[in-house]
């Protein structure tokens, strides 16, 4: 058991197999229309991934997610770092962030659609909003924890405030920032699906909820598997990148979750 668990990549594969087996058995025992067996759903996956139109939808979703995520990180990291280094900047943003925090970003979708239409702009904006808060929070925490002595030394050697931010605070806070980015990535995926669920135009969320409306249950579950796989793959890829970038720092959390 111990030796099996130490083979990299094997435990998640076993976990997937166990989940699929449980699903298969549960579906056969319950025998209801709304829960096809895992084998029937998985049989649909190649059909969806072989359909050029579905692939275009998935690509459109991922493009919006990438743009929203990149803009969100580019916007949030400087704000978080400045909040961490200046108590006035922190006092300026904190109450506003406290008010925005409990609003599920997807709930803004109807209003944003009213202003920006149902196209890419609305969906990308919602993804952007979903990504910013966790990244701001973690950048803030990371920048707060930077050792004062390093900053004093740098200031004594004549480094300006902006250079101190980019050359000392940013690298020192990087491990914590990347934890925020990982949460942000999961949130980007959630807001991506939710925004497409509401607008029903293109994307994976559109395929998912349209097939639900058309009672194509195998496709519904196949899409859930595809979106779940997407989430797992993106998270694993980001984790690999993160551990390369900050190999010098101790891992602070090895699992993250995001919520709507």
């Amino acid at each position, binding site marked *: 058991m111990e030796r099996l668990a130490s083979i990299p990549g094997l435990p998640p594969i076993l976990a997937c197999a166990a989940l699929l087996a449980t699903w298969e058995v549960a579906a056969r025992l319950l025998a209801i229309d709304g829960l096809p067996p895992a084998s029937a759903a998985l049989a649909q996956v190649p059909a969806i991934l072989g359909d050029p139109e579905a692939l275009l939808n998935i690509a459109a979703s991922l493009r919006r997610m990438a743009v929203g995520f990149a803009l969100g990180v580019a916007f949030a990291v400087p704000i978080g770092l400045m909040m961490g280094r200046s*108590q006035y900047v922190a006092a300026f943003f904190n109450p506003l962030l406290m008010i925005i925090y409990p609003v599920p970003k997807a709930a803004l979708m109807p209003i944003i659609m009213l202003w920006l239409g149902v196209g890419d702009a609305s969906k990308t904006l919602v993804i952007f909003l979903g990504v910013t808060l966790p990244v701001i929070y973690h950048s803030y925490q990371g920048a707060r924890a930077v050792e004062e002595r390093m900053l004093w030394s740098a200031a004594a050697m004549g480094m300006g405030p902006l250079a101190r931010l980019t050359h000392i605070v940013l690298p020192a806070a990087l491990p914590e920032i990347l934890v925020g980015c990982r949460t942000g990535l999961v949130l980007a995926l959630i807001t991506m699906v939710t925004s497409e669920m509401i607008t029903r135009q293109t994307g994976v969320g559109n395929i998912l909820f349209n097939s639900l409306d058309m009672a194509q249950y195998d496709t519904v579950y196949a899409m859930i598997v595809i979106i779940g796989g997407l989430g797992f793959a993106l*998270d694993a890829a980001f984790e690999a990148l993160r551990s390369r970038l900050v190999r010098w720092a101790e891992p602070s959390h090895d699992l993250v979750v*995001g919520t709507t």
Partner: protein
Amino acid sequence: MTRSDRSVGALIGIIPIALIIGVWQAIAASGLAPPSLLPAPAAVFARLVQQLGSPAYLDHVATTLFRLFAGFAIAVVIGVTIGLAATGSRAVEGVVRPLVRVLAPVPKIALYPAFILTLGFENASKIALVVADAAFPILLATHQGTSAVEMIISTDGLGHLLVRASRSFQTIDMFVPLITISLLGLLLNVGFNALRARLLIGFPEER
């Protein structure tokens, strides 16, 4: 921070909020955006007060809160039980860890159709979504021994109002649920922090 620093901080914090409401009011008053796209803040807040006195609206709020608390309670029981079991036994941890590794990054909203199909359109499927959403952070927090369990907000009751309002283009009614959600979230956060402070008396490392 000293006391006067703190009041200065509070004053600084009001600036961006006042600025946003100010700009909102200015745009609405200038006629740049028609009221059907952006109603004036006063109109929205007046409607909020009026709605909070309306039994039908409070009914929706109650539905949301019921689903939220039911889901959260179930998630706490599941998450804490599994989290403690994983801390206590290497074998359980060996099973739970890879399962969490696979399931945690899955966007839970994608599971919603499956919940609808198996549990129906009513409360059960929405509560199941809250459980799926909340269980993983609680499990991880329990396992990591931290008590930083965050409140998770479900929006179905109010969310339904929001979508209905957007269909009928009553823009004012779209802003009101958002403000209610934000207020609810703030209240829940304050309540939860107070509870946490009471429970953690004697843990000096918890501020």
